[in-house]
C-alpha cells in the first residue's frame, strides 16, 4: 500500500431486511422474511458516501464496494454504484452460508487483501453495525486480520494526507469526541454523521442500471480457505430462537370507571411498592 497511486477506498456493505418492517409469525414464532424489503444497511450507505466524498475532496481516486451475501445482494451494490462507487464485487456462494462474524471477517479480509494486491488500499470503511445483527464486530475483526489500525464510531475525517500516510479522525466515545491520528491504511467503522447521504445524480443511476457487479465465489477468482468460511468457519451456532416472552402485566384500571382519586391512590400504592419514596432528587446522574 503506497502513496503514489490515487486514493483507493474499500467499503464493506451488507444488505439487510428493513427491520422496521419485520414481523413474526405468531403461530410458529419465526421471522416472516417474505415481503420485507431489503435495504443497504443504513450505516453502510453513509460509509459509501464518506468514501465518495473523500475521493472528491482529494480530487480523485477509486471506491470499491464489496459485500458477502446472497445473489440478491447485488441490488445493494448497485445502490452503492449509484451513490458513486466505481467498482462493486459480490462475494457469493452457498458455501459462505451460515457465516458468523468470525467467518465473515475472514472472507472480507481475504477479499480486501486481493483487492489491495491489484491496487493498494488506503482506507477501508465499514458501517458501525448491521441492523439485522447489531453485532458491530465484523469491522474490528477485519482490521485485526489485516493488522491495520482500527477506529470505530468514526464521525469525521479531519485530515487525510495520502503522501504522508496519515489521517486525523474523530470518533464518538462516551466522554465526547476523541480526535485520533493514525497511519494509513486504516479501517473505520462509521456513524451516520460521517457524511450525509446525497441524492444521487441521474447519470449515476443510469450507469448503475447498466453496471454488472463482479461475482466472486468461494473458489474463483480467489480461493478462500474452506475451513474458515460458512458454517465450518463459524465457532458460534444458534441454539434456539424464540419470540421474547412478554413480562406479564398486572391490573389495568381506568380513570373513567374509577374516578381520578381512586386511580391515583392505586398508583401511589404501586409507587410505594417500588420503595422509591426515600430517594434524593438527582439520583442516577453519574457525573
Amino acid at each position, binding site marked *: 500500500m503506497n502513496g503514489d497511486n490515487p486514493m483507493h477506498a474499500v467499503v464493506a456493505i451488507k444488505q439487510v431486511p428493513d427491520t422496521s418492517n419485520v414481523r*413474526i409469525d405468531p403461530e410458529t414464532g419465526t421471522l416472516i422474511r417474505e415481503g420485507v424489503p431489503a435495504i443497504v444497511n443504513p450505516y453502510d450507505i453513509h460509509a459509501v458516501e464518506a468514501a465518495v466524498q473523500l475521493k472528491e475532496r482529494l480530487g480523485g481516486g477509486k471506491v470499491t464496494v464489496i459485500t458477502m451475501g446472497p445473489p440478491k445482494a447485488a441490488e445493494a451494490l448497485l445502490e452503492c454504484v449509484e451513490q458513486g462507487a466505481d467498482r462493486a464485487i459480490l462475494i457469493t456462494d452457498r458455501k459462505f452460508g451460515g457465516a458468523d462474524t468470525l467467518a465473515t471477517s475472514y472472507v472480507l479480509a481475504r477479499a480486501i487483501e486481493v483487492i489491495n494486491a491489484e491496487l493498494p488500499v488506503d482506507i477501508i470503511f465499514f458501517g458501525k453495525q448491521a441492523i439485522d445483527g447489531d453485532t458491530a464486530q465484523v469491522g474490528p475483526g477485519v482490521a485485526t486480520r489485516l493488522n491495520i489500525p482500527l477506529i470505530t464510531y468514526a464521525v469525521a475525517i479531519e485530515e487525510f494526507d495520502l503522501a504522508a500516510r496519515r489521517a486525523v479522525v474523530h470518533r464518538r466515545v462516551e466522554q*465526547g469526541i476523541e*480526535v485520533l491520528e493514525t497511519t494509513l491504511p486504516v479501517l473505520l467503522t462509521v456513524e451516520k454523521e460521517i457524511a450525509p447521504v446525497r441524492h444521487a445524480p441521474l447519470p449515476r443511476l443510469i450507469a448503475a442500471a447498466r453496471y454488472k457487479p463482479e461475482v466472486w465465489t468461494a473458489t474463483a477468482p480467489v480461493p478462500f480457505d474452506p475451513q474458515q468460511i460458512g458454517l465450518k468457519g463459524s465457532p458460534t*451456532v444458534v441454539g434456539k430462537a424464540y419470540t421474547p416472552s412478554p413480562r406479564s402485566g398486572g391490573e389495568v384500571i381506568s380513570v373513567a370507571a374509577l374516578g381520578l382519586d381512586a386511580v391515583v391512590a392505586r398508583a401511589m400504592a404501586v409507587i410505594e411498592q417500588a420503595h422509591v419514596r426515600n430517594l434524593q432528587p438527582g439520583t442516577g446522574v453519574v457525573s
Partner: protein
Amino acid sequence: MNAEQPTIPRIWVFVEQQEHQVHPVSWELLGAAKRLSADLPGSVVEAVLLGHQVADLAPQAFQYGASRVYLIDHPVLEIYRNMPYAVAVSQLVTEYRPEIFLIGATTLGRDLAGSIATRVGTGLTADCTELSIDPANHILAATRPTFGGNLMATILCRRHRPQMATVRPRVLPMPEPVPDATGEVVHVPFDMREEDVPVKRLRLIRAEEQPNIEYADVIVAGGRGVGGPEGFALLQELADALGGMVAASRPVVDAGWMDASRQVGQTGKTVRPKLYIAAGISGAVQHRVGMSGADVILAINTDPNAPIFQIATLGIVGDLYEVIPALIREVKGQSYDGQAHL
C-alpha cells in the same frame, strides 16, 4: 510458562476503566459470572484489568466477586486504544485460557471484543441480554435480541475457547459488594513501545455531561402521547418529586423534544429502575426491550389496548394530563406530611 492446570474453568470479566473510573457494567458482569460459576463445577471468577497506575482498582473487583485480578499496568495503556489493548488481552487469553470471557457492550467493549475474538480465533456473541450455562454440556448459552428486537436467539460456542460475550449495561442486576473480600493480584508483564502504536490521541473534545438514565432508580418516561416538548416539563416535575430522571421514546427524540441521550429502547439505553412510569408510550417491542427489566412499571395511556399495559404492574387508562398533575400533588403532599426528605 503457565504451570497451572488448564482444566480449571475460568470465567473472566473485563474490568473497563477510563480515567480511573470503572464502568459499572464490569460489576454487573462479575455478578453474572458468579451466577454462571455456580452452574459450572470447579470454576473460578476472575477479572482482567488494564491501564496505567490502576492497581488500586483491583480491590473493588474482589468486592464484586473476583477471586483473582490479572493486572497489566503499562504506559501505553494509559488511554484506551484498540491495538495495545487487544494485543495485551489476547496475550493473557492465550496464556491462561479462560473458559468464558465477558465484556461490557460499551463503546470501548465493543471496539475491543471483536479484535480479541479474531486474534484468538474464537466465537463472540454481541450485546447479550441473558447468560446461562447450558446444563447438558456445560457451555455458555448467550441470549441476545435480533431483528429489531422481534426475536431472541440463544447462541452457543461449542468447540472454541474462550466463549466470549458482550453484555449491555443494565440488563443484568448490580450485585451487592462484599466489603472485605480479598483476592490475588497477578501482575502480568507487557512489552510494547509507544512508537509501535499506530494511533495517537491528539485531543478529547469533552461533551457536556450527559444525563445517565441508565443508572437512575426512578424514571418518568414520555412518548409521542405527551404531544410536545412543553409536556416534558410536567414529567420533569413528577421526576423531581420522586427523585428520578426523565426519559423518552424514540419518536420524542426524533422530533427533537428530548435529547438522544434520554432515549430508552433498542436503539437507545437499557434501564432497570425500581420504578418506571410510562406516560403516553404505546409500548412497542423496541421500547420494551429497553425497560422491561424495571421492578415496577406504571403506565398511563388513553388507549386501553396499548401494548404497554401487557407488561405494566399497574396500567391506568386515562389522560396523562389529568393523571400526572394529580400524582404530583399526591407525591408532594405526602412528602410534606412526615417524610422529611423533600
